[in-house]
């Protein structure tokens, strides 16, 4: 059994350290399940790239946490699949293809052929960091962020793919755009792409 590292965060939060996105997702599912079952009192369960934050907990929970069997990250208890119609005409698509050392159409095939999983959200409400490309297809951020990236822009940064729910400044490399609404406060949940959601960018 692998010992888990849990760090204290102030008086009422804990941070679980994981090995990579799949383990984060496995823990997220497990913690979600325990909360639903009434076994876990927690205000927020916030996944990150390699960690998961439990905010609004009794710090004594740490003793209990380390006795819980680590969830199996191999079992693919699949999250919902969302298809995002995407026009692949981003301003940085040619640069991304060059970084990957492939042609433009091959880059599009690669993006459209990848099943992404939302690792975590942040930056803005409904902005999902989607993993699936892997380190091999990582791309650096732009040296100078754009002052305004339009709503629905699909971009890449590091090994993540993300879609801007609203227009904002941004340094991700833009590969396409979608007309799909990603965040709507009248919906429950308000974000289309929450943690654990599987995503396909379908050429439109």
């Amino acid at each position, binding site marked *: 059994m692998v010992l888990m590292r849990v*760090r*204290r*965060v*102030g*008086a009422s*939060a804990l*941070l679980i350290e994981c090995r990579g996105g799949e383990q984060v997702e496995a823990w997220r599912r497990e913690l979600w399940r325990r909360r639903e079952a009434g076994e876990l009192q927690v*205000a*927020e*369960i*916030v*996944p*990150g*790239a*390699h*960690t*998961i*934050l439990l*905010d*609004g907990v009794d710090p004594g929970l740490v003793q209990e946490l380390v006795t819980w069997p680590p969830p199996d990250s191999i079992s693919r208890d699949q999250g919902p699949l969302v298809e995002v119609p995407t026009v692949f005409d981003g301003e940085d698509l040619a640069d991304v293809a060059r970084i990957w050392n492939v042609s433009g159409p091959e880059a599009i095939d690669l993006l459209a052929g990848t099943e992404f999983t939302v690792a*975590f*959200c*942040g*930056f*803005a*409400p*409904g*902005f999902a*960091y989607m993993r699936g490309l892997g380190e091999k297809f990582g791309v650096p951020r732009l040296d100078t962020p754009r002052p305004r990236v339009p709503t629905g822009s699909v971009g890449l940064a590091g090994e993540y793919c993300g879609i801007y729910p*609203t227009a904002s400044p941004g340094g991700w490399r833009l590969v396409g755009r979608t007309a799909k609404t990603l*965040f709507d*406060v009248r919906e429950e*949940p*308000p*974000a289309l792409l*929450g*943690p654990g959601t599987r995503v396909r960018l379908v050429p439109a």
Partner: protein
Amino acid sequence: MITVVRAGPLTTIQDQGRPGYAHLGVPRSGALDQRALRRANALVGNPPSAAALETTLLGCALRFDEPARVAVAGAQAVVKLDKVPVEAEVIEVPAGSVLDVGRAIHGVRSYVAVDGGLDVEPVLGSRSTDTLSGLGPPKLVNGTTLAVGFLQSPLGAADKSDISGQLELGVWLGPRDDWFSGRELFDTAYEVTPMSNRVGCRLKGAPLTRARHGEMASEGVVLGAIQVPADGQPLIFLADHPTTGGYPVVGVVDDVTPLAQARPGSTVRFRELH
């Protein structure tokens, strides 16, 4: 109906905030000085969940179409009813009168609660304006009209705000204290800079010495987290903080409410909690 006569530089509607959506990137938001909000609400018999106004440094002025019971808490400021200063914290405002909350003499943010609560459409369970994401009602401008609700609660009591130009804040070390090698945070004093806002209180002082370099992977952050960007100057996250961050958090401030009232130039000292 209330009409905003003088909006001030940043007057927003705030309540206890928008918890429960951090995993979707939605900040908590809510009043920066929750103690002052509780007090203002308690004084007019509102439940703690009622929405009130939060002003910034220069106050605001409001005209009331209907008679109202109003309480002002938080920053110390001269409050005038139809240009006449009033001493009481609870003010009976007659119909047609203008209530003016003046410039903050001590502190930064005044809270103006109206008996019944401010009635704007809640967004994800909260009436708070989130200055980071834009969720909730827009900030007040001259001419904005506000409706009053019908919330009721027994009259209560709540502590006064903690206002001082010299703050001593308790800090729990971690989660990323192992990224730093020095004790600057506890050995030296820091100064609140004018760059501070509802997202965070930016400090200036001895830069924290990094033990580890390079980038940290993004992770969830909490209210009061002391985030340290590359320049080593600490930034304490307040209510509108982003839900995840990519800079290491050296420690977490136990109670951020005094920072809501800390003016630029105030001195902050940290004390380690165990």
